[in-house]
């Protein structure tokens, strides 16, 4: 290739770039920055989230009359902004709080996104949302549960998911309920990793049990992405707690399941705090040796033809996976953000912030089992709620508590394999 060819190619490239940007300027686009773990130990979560956001943007940007009155579905694009399309700009947090922070900075200053959405791990949501706060850009979080995230007095941070304090209460009530039915639940052990998520959720749960006059009997902390958990399982086997609550990401959750089998350890009640236990790859990999594990969830598929069932179908078609609680909470959070931008009728951060503050969605406008979406002064959704599900057959979770929404009765004790 001589110089002339190179120059020619460069010219062509420059021209195509010019055309591309010209075309973009004509269609109105609302850019939303998304920070997710696309690589690293929790990359499966990022891959699922990406598929879910593809479905969500399809629903928002194209007409989907089959979803009825589901917000943003009926017409193409955001009506409040003259049919503007939503564009997702994904940034990889690499499972690292510092990287997440840099990505937030890049999305805000270079990509000029209207709002930021992320970032799965509580520790990364903590750092990346601080950047959004500094620059005055709305940040919506849909799945990080560390309680302190909404205790920082932030003005631009909004969270749709139920948080540690909510489900600590759910766990206490659930265990009291099955105790009334004859299960032993007197000594409770917590097993958690040493990340922001693991430690803060463990603290909140421990606090809730202490308040009930039932302090935690054993606290087993371990470093995240462990290579071996035999010591921890043996600790449990030694102390024999009645209930073990697992607060773990996918990799460690799988390792615990395998190690518990090989060391033949089964607590009477194994209760997982979402995260790894809701990852479909957990059930595929070790579901058959984790039969009877309880888990929390806000996701329940509605009857066929309902928006949640249709959306779950679209997601399955896109990703090949069944919708799980984490992905459902993420998708719901994204819809809440898009709905607020639509209502704001502008990409001006202050107007979006005001619209988020005024959000008042009813249960029938949601795809998930919250009692609604309404933020308090701290930015926390006060209508978020959850239920207990159980992996009875080792393949699919079924709702077992509270009784009003239960598909089946809880089965005890933990079966394992």
């Amino acid at each position, binding site marked *: 290739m001589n110089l002339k060819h190179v120059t020619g190619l460069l010219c062509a490239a420059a021209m195509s770039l010019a055309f591309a940007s010209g075309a973009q300027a004509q269609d109105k686009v609302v850019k939303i920055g998304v920070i997710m773990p696309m*690589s*690293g*130990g929790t*990359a*499966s979560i*990022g*891959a699922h989230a990406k598929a879910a956001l593809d479905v969500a943007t399809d629903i928002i940007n194209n007409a989907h009359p089959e979803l009825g009155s589901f917000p943003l579905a009926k017409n193409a694009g955001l009506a409040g902004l003259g049919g503007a399309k939503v564009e997702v700009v994904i940034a990889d947090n690499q499972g690292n709080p510092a990287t997440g922070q840099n990505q937030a900075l890049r999305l805000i200053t270079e990509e000029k996104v209207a709002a930021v959405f992320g970032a799965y791990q509580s520790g990364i949501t903590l750092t990346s949302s601080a950047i959004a706060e500094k620059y005055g850009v709305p940040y919506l979080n849909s799945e990080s549960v560390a309680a302190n995230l909404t205790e920082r007095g932030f003005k631009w941070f909004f969270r749709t998911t139920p948080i540690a304090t909510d489900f600590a209460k759910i766990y206490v009530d659930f265990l009291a309920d099955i105790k009334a039915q004859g299960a032993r639940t007197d000594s409770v052990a917590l097993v958690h990793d*040493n990340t922001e998520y693991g430690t803060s959720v463990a603290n909140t749960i421990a606090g809730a049990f202490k308040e009930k006059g039932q302090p935690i009997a054993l606290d*087993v*902390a*371990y*470093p995240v*992405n*462990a*290579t*071996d*958990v*035999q*010591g*921890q399982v*043996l*600790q449990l*086997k*030694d102390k024999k707690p009645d209930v073990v609550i697992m607060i773990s990401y*996918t*990799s460690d959750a*799988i*390792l615990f399941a*395998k190690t518990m*089998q*090989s*060391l*033949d350890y089964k607590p009477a009640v194994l209760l997982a705090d979402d995260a790894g236990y809701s*990852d*479909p*790859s*957990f059930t*595929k*990999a*070790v579901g*058959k*040796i984790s039969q009877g594990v309880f888990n929390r969830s806000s996701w329940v598929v509605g009857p066929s033809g309902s928006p949640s069932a249709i959306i779950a179908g679209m997601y399955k078609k896109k990703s090949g996976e069944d919708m799980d609680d984490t992905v459902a909470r993420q998708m719901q959070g994204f819809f809440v953000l898009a709905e607020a931008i639509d209502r704001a009728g502008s990409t001006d951060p202050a107007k979006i912030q005001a619209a988020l503050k005024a959000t008042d969605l009813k249960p029938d406008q949601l795809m998930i089992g919250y009692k609604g979406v309404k933020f308090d002064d701290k930015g926390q959704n006060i209508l978020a709620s959850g239920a207990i599900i159980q992996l009875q057959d080792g393949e699919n979770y079924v709702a077992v508590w509270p009784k009003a929404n239960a598909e089946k009765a809880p089965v005890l004790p933990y079966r394992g*394999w």
Partner: protein
Amino acid sequence: MSFVLVQVIVGGLLLGAVYALFSSGLTLVWGMMNIVNFAHGDLVMLGMYVAYVVYTLMGGGPILGAPLATLVLATVGVVVYFALIRDIMKGPMLAQILGTFGLALLLRYSVFWWFGANFLSMPPNIVGGTYAFAGLRVEASRLLAGVVALLVTFGLHLLLTRTSLGSKMLAVAEDATAAQLMGIRPDTMQAIAWAIAAGATGLAGALIANFFYIVPTVGETLGIVAFVTVSLGGFGSVPGALVAGLLIGVIESLSGYLIGAVYKDIVVYLLFLFFLWFRPQGLMGKS
């Protein structure tokens, strides 16, 4: 001494043997050509995926998967040597670091692209369940990995010290130019060293796959352990890697059980620093 403590130590020894198994390839490459291979953990990962693919396509356990993973990875090793290592060996240290690190990312994200980010797992009991001796529980898959680790270490040690191929490889390691004058082809010897190192790594991956989860990023988790094992044992020393692996395995499990898992790395790395201070060449490395 409680009975649980015996279980902890046995578990630690088996874990340590596995650490030794996947570290031997790393120490060999260093001993032969002074290259710190940052792609090592990802070669383990590749071995795990080969075993998994063999299982899903043809069924069968490690009897089929382990030899195939060894073969495939040995081939990968030779390709990597001729395509990358041969050239970056002549460059500065930085080129080696960037070269092998780039290889790590290439391998990791090729697998990522092909298999996706989901966690995979072999079916439980693929090797044959768990043995219980008087209450002591030993998983067959871990026992197999431990036994193979001992055999591989012993075999590599014999190869390097008792065979003419080993002597030639060591001669190249000592002085490539002098070896060439003696009629030894450094290129061939180093390619063989890469084949052996990568093959052993693939074998390790295939055996670990029987009791660990399989995911494209698993090399990150395992790679760090390999580096600590190799530096503690002495870079380039195969028996050193075995002793260091066993030591780290037992220390990790004991401290994890006795003082809590979040502190076990502190104990391991304190020991590591202690060794760097008093014996920088490692347990069995040459000074």
